[in-house]
């Protein structure tokens, strides 16, 4: 088990380095000089331009810039943004907010998807099954920003249950609405997957044997059917995390959440290499950690994986 964990962590290292390189290269390859952009309409002062280019190392060849950056990151220094702030500080300010948003969304996703999937899988063709089919079809065909505006308009503006934007107050109650919207964005696939998985498990031999032993439905469903059905669904939750980050960027913009999405969007527009690359690197890191956790969860659910070396 420990061996397995160590191997997974070692595998993450080349992935991490590879992504930083790709992102750095892509930002580097963007047309236009971002420093010039800082001067707006005015003609740049050549001396200032040179000093800024010096400071942000824009006059160096790509590979030197990249290696310098990587060296700094390894020492825990993510560099400076164009506004002169330390990127470390921006990361520390925005990531907790986004993680909180993602956590709210993930919890809602897991609870609702499992409940709907389980009930529809146990009674295919029942009312809940048809409801969840319509529900997932509707959600899967709707872009997230439409979902955001509808939720904002009805639940915040019309009904007044939530505040329409989050702003500086990032309490759970305030973040609930964007969290729900974010959950709805990813929920369709796990509902369908959970349903299929539950139906398949219900048909398996060991479930019939469990009934033949005299067990009641109340026992067979949670103990035998649900746990076995969780195995494929868990993988889905892991890969949904990537989608959540994508969705968070849009949701944060519309609900004005001071998280990663907003900041990253601005940084991309301005071509701030250190900020963009640092944000993406941390995102990739989190994504890798989540996937390792999912793998461990997988092993906890399925002893065949736990004992396989």
């Amino acid at each position, binding site marked *: 088990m420990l061996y397995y964990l160590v191997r997974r962590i070692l595998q993450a290292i080349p992935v991490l380095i590879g992504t930083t390189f790709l992102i750095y290269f892509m930002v580097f390859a963007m047309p236009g000089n971002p420093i010039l952009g800082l001067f707006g309409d005015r003609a740049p002062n050549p001396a200032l331009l040179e000093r800024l280019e010096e400071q942000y190392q824009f006059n160096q060849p790509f590979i030197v810039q990249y290696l310098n950056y990587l060296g700094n990151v390894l020492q825990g220094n993510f560099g400076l943004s164009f506004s002169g702030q330390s990127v470390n500080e921006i990361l520390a300010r925005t990531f907790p907010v986004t993680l909180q948003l993602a956590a709210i969304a993930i919890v809602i996703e897991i609870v609702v998807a499992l409940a709907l999937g389980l009930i529809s899988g146990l009674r295919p063709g029942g009312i809940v099954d048809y409801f969840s089919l319509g529900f997932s079809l509707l959600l899967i065909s709707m872009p997230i920003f439409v979902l955001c505006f509808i939720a904002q308009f009805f639940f915040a503006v019309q009904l007044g249950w939530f505040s329409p934007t989050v702003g500086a107050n990032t309490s759970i109650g305030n973040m609930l609405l964007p969290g729900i919207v974010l959950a709805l964005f990813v929920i369709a696939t796990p509902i369908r997957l959970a349903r299929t998985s539950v139906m398949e498990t219900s048909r398996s031999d*060991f479930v019939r*044997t469990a009934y033949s032993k*005299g067990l009641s439905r109340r026992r067979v469903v949670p103990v035998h059917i649900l746990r076995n059905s969780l195995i494929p669904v868990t993988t889905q939750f892991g890969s949904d995390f990537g989608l959540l980050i994508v969705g968070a960027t849009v949701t944060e913009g519309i609900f004005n959440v001071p998280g990663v999405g907003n900041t990253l969007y601005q940084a991309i527009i301005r071509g701030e290499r250190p900020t963009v690359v640092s944000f993406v690197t941390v995102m990739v890191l989190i994504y890798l950690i989540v996937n390792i956790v999912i793998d461990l969860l997988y092993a906890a659910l399925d002893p065949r994986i736990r004992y396989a070396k």
Partner: protein
Amino acid sequence: MTRLLEVVDLEVGFRTGNGVVKALNGVSFTIDRGESVAIVGESGSGKSTTAAAIINLLPGGGEILGGKVLFEGKDLAKASTAELEEVRGKRIGFVPQDPMSNLDPVWSVGFQVRETVRANGLATDRAGAKAKSIEVLQQAGLPGAEQRFHQYPHQFSGGMRQRVLIGMGLAANPSLLIADEPTSALDVTVQRRILDHLDSLTENSGTALMFITHDLGLAAERASKLIVMYKGRIVEAGPSLEILRNPRHPYTQRLIAAAPSLASRRIQASGAGEVAPVASGEQQAALEVEQLDLASAAEHRLQHEDARREAGDAIVVDELTKVFKIRQGGFRSTEFTAVDKVSFSIPKGTTTALVGESGSGKSTVAKLLLGLETPTSGAITIDGRRTDALTGRARFELRRRMQPVFQDPYGSLDPLMSIGSIIAEPLTVHGVGDRASRRQRVLELLDQVALPRVLAGRYPNELSGGQRQRIAIARALALKPEIVVLDEAVSALDVLVQAQILSLLAELQEELGLTYLFITHDLAVVRVIADNVCVMQKGRIVEQAATDEVFDNPREQYTRDLLEAIPGASLLAS
């Protein structure tokens, strides 16, 4: 006094896309307390459906359409869920067919036994439940039950899992135990141990046993009463020995005639004669029975034997060894010798059987011979040429003269290719003939394996298991090979179909002078098909002799064990 179980006019149907398909048509029988009853029939005859209907656990879409299942006077067909839960496990135990899929893979074995114990009120507290569970496992004959309590099903072998399932079925001392093919997934020797154990357990507790099997010999050996099912009906029922000696229904007669046993001798094409087609309807079964009396064919054999000896060896295997590396995690690995210095030779035009339990290395020998694995050491000589020296073209040529037929007729045919293209594929690969002549050859081959020519345009999923195996044989014969390697080629088939395929193989051998290497775990089949036998155990050949010699005077204890384990051998012989 009421009967223990009385099934009256039971009708079961399955809902499908095209309406309800009836699986049981008015099945009636009774089981008394302490009695052992076997239900026999080929797959699809409704025997498992009968078992599932009794405890009302029909698979999806299944429904009881009519009739009664009176258990101790109470109709289970109309019982409520709560009443059924009360009966299941506590009054009627159930041992399912496949030990591999019937234990929940994510819970420990102990957990699953303990929940049985608790659900049936055999213990009230945690400690008591655990003690009782261990006792249940010990009674079922699981060695080291206490140490293995926390292990998971995948850490158990098939035989041990089946013991766990039997333990759970018998945990509450039920008055009826339904065992649905409890050992068909297991090796003969394991099967024998498990069944002996089951016998003594049910005898001691006075439990009635309803035993479902496709193996007539096994049924007769283990049960006092036989019920023969065919297409959802009971065609014959009565005391086992009487049915075996005087089968009245034509279907039963065919079943008994087709069952290979120790009594039978090797089939000779001329003696076996016409192969009876699988009855497509009930009427056909009731019609005249074609005698597939394999035993009567034996006499012809001796005359041919001497002529064969002259021809020389088709295959010589010398000190063949195959070592596999098994990964232990990390970079460590241990070595596992699957085949250990195996030597044998097969004279041209004869059949050599390679027998042994699963894991004895028989299939690895086949793969080495076919060049699908490379030997670690040793030599294979085919028609006087060492195979290890062959490269490219010559190896390709060799494949043309040596063809395989594999065990699983479902897995070895590409489902997306028509039967015609499947049979023609070897011809295409080896560039034999043009389109028209290949097509002609396909039709010829279909004739040869006694299948209608129209099948050429059909797809594998439209055929039965027996038909598919014929297709696999036709494909193997397409290139007119001299050697055919048959790896458990009839093991997955019902006895009637098995007999047809064996006769077909014997005929083809006679006609085309083929050499067979026949790999099987079923010694009864060996007797009717093989000239020579090699018995393998743990990668080595432990005994090697002419078929009759091995059967009449087995020298090794292991061979004797294998022979003794053939179910019903003594009964059918008499």
